[in-house]
């Protein structure tokens, strides 16, 4: 073990676990560092969205699959409740000076590091006029995921599923909030969640308010085919959400295609919030000497995984927004680049 080349993976979310497994599969010893008390990160809060027993390819179960594979894998040492305090370069190697839960200091010296620090959810409060936290029955997609994951489909019985509005691009593609990018995942998870709600309450009227629905991707084909006729899809974004009559949520929107202004009320409003760089991304970038792109994600070379610092690679959502499956694929690619860097071949 000690004579093997080693790498450190920072972040124990789905990308970090996938990258560690890929390296371990090649016989490279890996140190996996996770800040929280458990592995999983954001991927662990994604619920299963199968409809009628048919998988919708959301990837919610992949975290558990990967965790099980990690239990069996040889050569991955996991350090929980550990975070990097300082990074030093020592003769081409990176020394990670870490701190553990009770202030215990720990240091590792490795030739290569894969950053897989993931993302933060965009706070729905960034869109003040949408009244999250002020109006009843305005929830985020993430709240709905957590509800379904924690309590299963019975949770749907407690939701007011008469008329439901999904509002897309809450925080994403929004230059006023400094996020001009598409978060990639929100249209897909919202469409899948809508199908789950519809399965529980077939008579529910579900409407989508969107700029453009992003439904490409092989994993989306079946869901989109099933969703296309099932939901009302409105091109137009609501301006201000208000308290309506009988505990409903009311808002006015302009239908882009006709220019008509319409006021409608809904029993439940789901805000499809997106992905933003972690709050500590700038700190990490400074520690490792990385660049960030204009949106704050780690900047990489055109291969998408190598940062401008030799021996430091980025995997998953810390580099750009990605779905769970895409994060895994990206992590494989980062591990590959890392192996090439380690010179692990004749």
């Amino acid at each position, binding site marked *: 073990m000690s004579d*093997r*080349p080693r790498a450190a993976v920072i972040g124990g979310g789905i990308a970090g676990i996938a990258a560690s497994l*890929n390296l371990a*599969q*090649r*016989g*490279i010893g890996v140190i996996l560092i996770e800040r929280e008390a458990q592995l999983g990160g954001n991927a662990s809060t994604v619920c299963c969205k199968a409809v009628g027993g048919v*998988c919708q*390819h959301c*990837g919610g179960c*992949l975290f558990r*699959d990967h965790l*099980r594979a990690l*239990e*069996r894998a040889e050569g991955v040492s996991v350090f929980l409740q550990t975070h990097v305090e300082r990074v030093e370069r020592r003769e081409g190697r990176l020394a990670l000076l870490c701190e553990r839960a009770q202030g215990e200091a720990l240091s590792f010296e490795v030739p290569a590091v894969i950053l897989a620090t993931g993302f933060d959810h965009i706070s729905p409060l960034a869109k003040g006029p949408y009244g999250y936290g002020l109006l009843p029955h305005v929830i985020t997609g993430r709240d709905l995921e957590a509800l379904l994951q924690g309590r299963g489909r019975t949770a749907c019985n407690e939701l007011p599923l008469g008329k439901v509005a999904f509002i897309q691009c809450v925080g994403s*593609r929004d230059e006023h909030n400094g996020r*001009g*990018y*598409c978060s*990639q995942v929100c*249209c897909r998870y919202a469409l899948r969640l809508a199908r789950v709600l519809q399965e529980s309450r077939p008579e529910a009227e579900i409407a989508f308010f*969107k700029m*453009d*629905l*992003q*439904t*490409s*991707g*092989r*994993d989306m*084909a079946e869901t989109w085919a099933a969703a296309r006729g099932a939901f009302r899809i409105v*091109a137009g974004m609501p301006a201000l959400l208000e308290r309506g009559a009988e505990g409903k949520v009311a808002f006015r929107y302009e239908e*882009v*295609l*006709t220019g008509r202004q319409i006021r409608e009320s809904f029993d439940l409003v789901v805000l499809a919030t997106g992905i933003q760089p972690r709050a500590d991304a700038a700190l990490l970038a400074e520690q490792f000497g990385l660049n960030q792109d204009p949106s704050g994600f780690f900047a990489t070379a055109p*291969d*998408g995984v190598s940062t401008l610092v030799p021996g430091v690679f980025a995997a998953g959502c810390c580099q*750009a927004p990605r779905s*769970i*499956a*895409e994060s*895994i*694929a*990206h992590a*494989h*690619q980062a*591990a*590959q680049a890392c*192996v*090439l860097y380690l010179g*692990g*071949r*004749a």
Partner: protein
Amino acid sequence: MNPMPGRPRGVIVLGAAPEALCAVRELAALGYAVAWLPLEEAQAPAALPPNVAIYPAAELVGLGGYAGAFCAQVRRGEAIECLPGAAVLIALGNARCYPQERYGLPLGPRVLTPPQARQRLKDRTLEALLSHRKAHFLVMLDWGGETSRETAVEALHTARALRQNHAEVTLFYRDLKVDSAPLERLTRRMREEGVVFCRYIEVEVRFEEGGVHIAAPDGLVRGDMLILPEAVQPHPATLPLAALLKLRVGKDGYFQEVNVRQVRPGLTNRKGIYVAGRCHMDADREAALEDVSHVVASLDAFLHSLDEPPSGPTAEVERDRCIRCLTCVRTCPHAAAEVVEREGITAAYVEKAACWGCGICAAHCPVQAIALKGQAVPSWLAPTAQGVSIR
């Protein structure tokens, strides 16, 4: 457990798409000896790495062996040659067509596809039109059905090229698929450069007075030329190749990876055979090449895992009980079972290196001659005195 395997390994790459060249280069950079069979007329690239052998006029007639030791039977002229490889990567690409029945419009002097428009820009045959100041091109996405990602991106690039040649360009769309940062940047730049984006649900197209008229929600738009994107379809070699290699093809006619959730990117139903790029997904060029990188990474990790002792269960046949009914050969989704003569007995045999341990053959065997061996008890199934309890 050696991270630097001593024995050099080969990979067989099939297909002539740009993805294939990209895969060949990436695999060669990883130190694999690559045997590249384009399977169709293709121009060989000028410089290939030394560890790549290209077989331009070769026909694939069969694939023997299993993961780690495949053997591609290749006909070159009269002789049949056997090319060894530890894994196979397929990058056929896709095929294009102009979907006339979808649009209800034949191509003509006023209706062009994006590649035709670009060709005419290059040949300067659009010059006369572009010289009068208000040449107006109408680009129509998602008409009569969704435009594929690849051709939609091509249409966007064409619209931009026309705009940069000082034409007016109006682009009609339903949903602008910009779910990647480069595409988002592209459309933003196009807007800044003056391409008009117009959303529609239903439009009516008429040809009048030598022009094209589109009745759009914002009013009538008059243009000189209509640009309609092509459609993509599976490469014609997909089905024959799938039949030859016993690979699964999806309902849409493209190669079906074993798991679209990308747990193992690009892996087919047969261990060691991978598909990459547009022969299994709808992608623009950048996304297809990115997929190649993912698939190569997954393939490389797989080939390294071959050095390790096999983990997980595999099916094993009690060969003297076998009645040679071929049930396992038919039911195995991974083409791992065959009936062969070994040690004087002709009976079913499951190749360990090709077996996923799914247990389907064991479940179907009418004489219970197949069992899964090497199955570890999962950690959540703890044996107790009473038997097994699920924690």
